[in-house]
């Protein structure tokens, strides 16, 4: 594809509901990354995938957060039992390979938990 795409672009949900965020990386990119950006803040790294594997999940904020990637392409970030503090922009990025490669970002999903 032409770039990294994410859906939905905006999501409003009620506290306690589950949400699923989707990321489509650039075609052929083996590495995929998830970040969270709270209002007016920098980016907080959450998790990365090399292929379908996520070797280090320690960046996920809590056990309510999970992520998966299938077919070495699309990834989903799932937040269970959402809380108001989960409100943020969730950014996805991809790179050709894992090491020393420039990451290209998607437009993000703005999540608002009421």
């Amino acid at each position, binding site marked *: 594809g032409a770039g990294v795409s994410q859906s939905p672009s905006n999501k409003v949900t009620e506290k306690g509901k589950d949400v699923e965020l989707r990321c489509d990386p650039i075609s052929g990119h083996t590495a995929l990354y998830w970040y969270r950006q709270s209002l007016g803040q920098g*980016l907080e790294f959450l998790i990365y995938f090399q292929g379908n594997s996520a070797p280090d999940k320690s960046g996920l904020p809590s056990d309510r957060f999970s992520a998966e990637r299938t077919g070495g392409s699309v990834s989903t970030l799932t937040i269970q039992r959402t809380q108001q503090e989960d409100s943020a922009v969730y950014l996805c990025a991809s790179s050709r390979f894992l090491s020393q490669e420039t990451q290209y970002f998607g437009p993000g999903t703005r999540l608002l938990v009421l």
Partner: protein
Amino acid sequence: AQTVTQSQPEMSVQEAETVTLSCTYDTSESNYYLFWYKQPPSRQMILVIRQEAYKQQNATENRFSVNFQKAAKSFSLKISDSQLGDTAMYFCALRDDNNDMRFGAGTRLTVKP
């Protein structure tokens, strides 16, 4: 642990003038990459420029250049001939061989007509 510090939360510059955004970092790694990303109101993070730590020559991309001072762990971004479209948040980032990528808190740049 790696840290990236951007000490200027906000800056402004007149159109056509030059502005420099500061970034300092700390890492124990010998091999790493440094990046400047731009995030306009559209929210899309766009790579502006990148620098390999092992290269002494400062990276340049058109109107954008960096002043990389490895010993001082400084990586500033100079924007020449500022344009209205340069208005955005600018993030400095550091990535090491362990794939640990850290971003600074950002500098909000406003280009005034």
